[in-house]
């Protein structure tokens, strides 16, 4: 059985995940460049946000806070038309209902067309006309005018919150990315490698993309296991979460099929409407054919993955305690559902190393299992239709085992792996990560456990 896997990830051109050293060579100029880049993002975000606020939020705020109330008479109804060219051959027309009103400001009579909120714009002329029907000619109603420019008058006030949110989303992202990057650069400026690493604290929080998994408090480089102990078991204390590529594959296929076919539906509707209108957009039809093919393929893949997942059934693993300690003995409960039969089913405890390294423009991750122990092995396993296969076993963690370790590019991970060979289906492999803490420490919140095996320290060897 192959124990080494190499994954070559070719980074997409539109996104590059940067880890570790960003530059080789001149650190100072690299830092300056980094700082200037983030400063540019920060300034761009502030400017963009300022422009949007002044163009959208500021007028709305003025209307709601500075405009003065008055009474007006509706003299006429109208539709304001806005035409936008939409290449290659179409135009988009927007209609905004507006009213001609007469009102008095300090004894001066004004007649103006009202300014409506952006939300009243519509591309459908009939809808715009329908909105006008709510108003009656000759009726008197409340209005608000701009004291600085009395000709400006509105008949409705309020806030379009969604527009505010959308307007601030992109500038907010630019400010966040630029600001955190700039703070990180300034904190690291002029410091040696050890000094930078020693003072990393806020910097780590500000750059989540470069962080390894969170370390358990008080145990540097040991990963937290909170996510592994938040699910109680039905028989034993904890139910371990599964880390299996097939579940992600299923979700991935499902999302892909959903999103892709949504696009196909939109394109199809557009093509159909054009066809009904007597127009044929050949480019659209040419695009639709391959899109449809890919969409059907996505659905087929998703259904196949779903059938596999349901036919083989879920695998559950419960454990008597967690995190684990070297020399500790733990009960595990293996439960396998599904309607088929497994020719073989094995549970193993493994130690895996993972190293990530750059190769030119590629990032490679290599994984290697360096220790494996078979915990339980079964043959010809079959579940009854209304029950599942269950079996208990015991795990003995070696007394001199390395604890779980994680850093930005390297990891040492423990895991329980269930491998099975179902009838008529491909082999399955389901992984349940566990965390092993260093020996000799009290794990916070842990329950009293069985006494650990005494650790034998080998005698010191004579020096050469």
């Amino acid at each position, binding site marked *: 059985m192959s124990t080494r896997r190499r994954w070559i990830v070719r980074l997409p051109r539109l996104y590059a995940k940067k880890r570790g050293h960003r530059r080789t060579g001149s650190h100072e100029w690299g830092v300056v460049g980094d700082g200037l880049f983030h400063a540019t993002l920060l300034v761009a975000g502030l400017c963009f946000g300022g422009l949007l606020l002044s163009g959208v939020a500021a007028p709305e705020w003025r209307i709601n806070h500075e405009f003065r109330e008055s009474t007006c008479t509706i003299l006429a109804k109208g539709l304001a038309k806005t035409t936008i060219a939409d290449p290659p051959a179409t135009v988009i027309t927007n209609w905004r209902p507006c009213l001609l009103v007469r009102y008095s400001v300090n004894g001066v009579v004004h007649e103006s067309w009202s300014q409506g909120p952006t939300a009243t714009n519509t591309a459908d002329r009939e809808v715009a006309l329908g909105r006008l029907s709510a108003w009656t000619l000759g009726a008197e109603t409340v209005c608000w005018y701009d004291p600085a420019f009395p000709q400006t008058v509105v008949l409705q006030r309020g806030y379009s919150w969604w527009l505010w949110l959308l307007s601030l989303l992109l500038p907010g992202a630019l400010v966040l990315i630029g600001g955190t990057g700039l703070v990180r650069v300034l904190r690291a400026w002029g410091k040696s490698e050890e000094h930078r690493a020693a003072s990393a604290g806020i910097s780590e929080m500000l750059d989540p993309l470069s962080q390894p998994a969170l370390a358990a408090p008080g145990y540097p480089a040991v990963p937290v296991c909170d996510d592994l102990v938040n699910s109680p078991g039905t028989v034993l204390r904890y139910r371990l979460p599964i880390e299996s590529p097939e579940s992600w594959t299923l979700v991935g296929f499902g999302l892909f099929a959903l999103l892709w076919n949504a696009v196909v539906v939109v394109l199809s509707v557009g093509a159909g409407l054009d066809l009904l209108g007597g127009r044929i957009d050949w480019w659209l039809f040419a695009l639709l054919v391959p899109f449809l093919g890919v969409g059907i393929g996505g659905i087929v893949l998703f259904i196949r993955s779903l059938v596999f997942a349901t036919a083989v059934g879920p695998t559950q693993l419960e454990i008597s305690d967690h995190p684990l300690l070297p020399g500790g003995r733990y009960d595990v409960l293996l439960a396998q559902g599904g309607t088929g039969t497994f020719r073989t089913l094995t549970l193993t405890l493994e130690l895996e190393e993972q190293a990530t390294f750059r190769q030119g*423009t590629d990032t490679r991750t290599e994984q290697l299992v360096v220790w494996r122990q078979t915990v339980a092995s079964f043959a010809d396993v079959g579940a009854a239709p209304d029950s599942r296969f269950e079996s208990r076993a015991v795990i003995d963690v070696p007394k001199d085992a390395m604890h779980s370790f994680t850093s930005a590019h390297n990891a040492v991970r423990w895991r329980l792996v269930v491998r099975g060979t179902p009838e008529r289906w491909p082999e399955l492999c389901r992984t349940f990560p566990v965390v092993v803490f260093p020996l000799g420490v009290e794990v916070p919140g842990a329950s009293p456990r069985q006494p650990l095996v005494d650790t034998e320290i*080998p005698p010191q060897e004579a020096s050469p």
Partner: protein
Amino acid sequence: MARMVSNPFSTRHTRPGSILSRDPTGMPIDVASLLDRLDALGGSAAIVGPHGSGKSTLLMHLAAALARRGESVQRVRLHSWVDAPTVWMAIRRARPGDIVCIDSWECSGHLIGSLLRAEARMTRRRLLVTSHRGVGFPELVRCTTSPALLRSIVEGLPGHGFWFGKLVHRADIDQAFVNHGGNLRESLYELYDRFEAAKSPFSDVRRDGPIDHAGHAGVHHEIHEFTDGFSSVGAPERNLG
């Protein structure tokens, strides 16, 4: 407790800048003559070669040599066109006549690369780049590899006198070169694996339990420690001298 020997093929010993730049015959590259050629070409040029042929290493050594002779040098590494703004800023920050060393120039793409090059030309900054293929710059040197080059690289790794011929043999080096089509980086990774497999006394025994310490009695190897490491400006963090 016995300490194990440091794998000389680990990334800390083989990353760009940690290895001396050598030509295909294995001899150290005459950096001074390359700099003269760079001047003759007008100051901007490209180091061309396939994956894992030592371009980045040579670029680092040329940059260090330029800095030693008093020139102002900036270095940037491209991973994708997203890094283009950093290159642009490095060009803008440099003074006229300065040189900007850019690794993996082809990542900038044709359009952005042309714009950056035009910017450098207009502002009289020089560019020294690495690339897998011709990118319109005059070619300073074309990096090629050979088994002799790989052998000479291996000779320069720490502890060579101790482990060569015992844990890694010449045949292993030549085989790694053939297996990876001359890619030195991949070859060094394979030699890493061979070294690890060879130094394990129980590599052919299936183990289900803890490792027996008794098997290491009498084995004492020193981990290579950096006690002569000058971290000068422009040099890698851990310079072996």
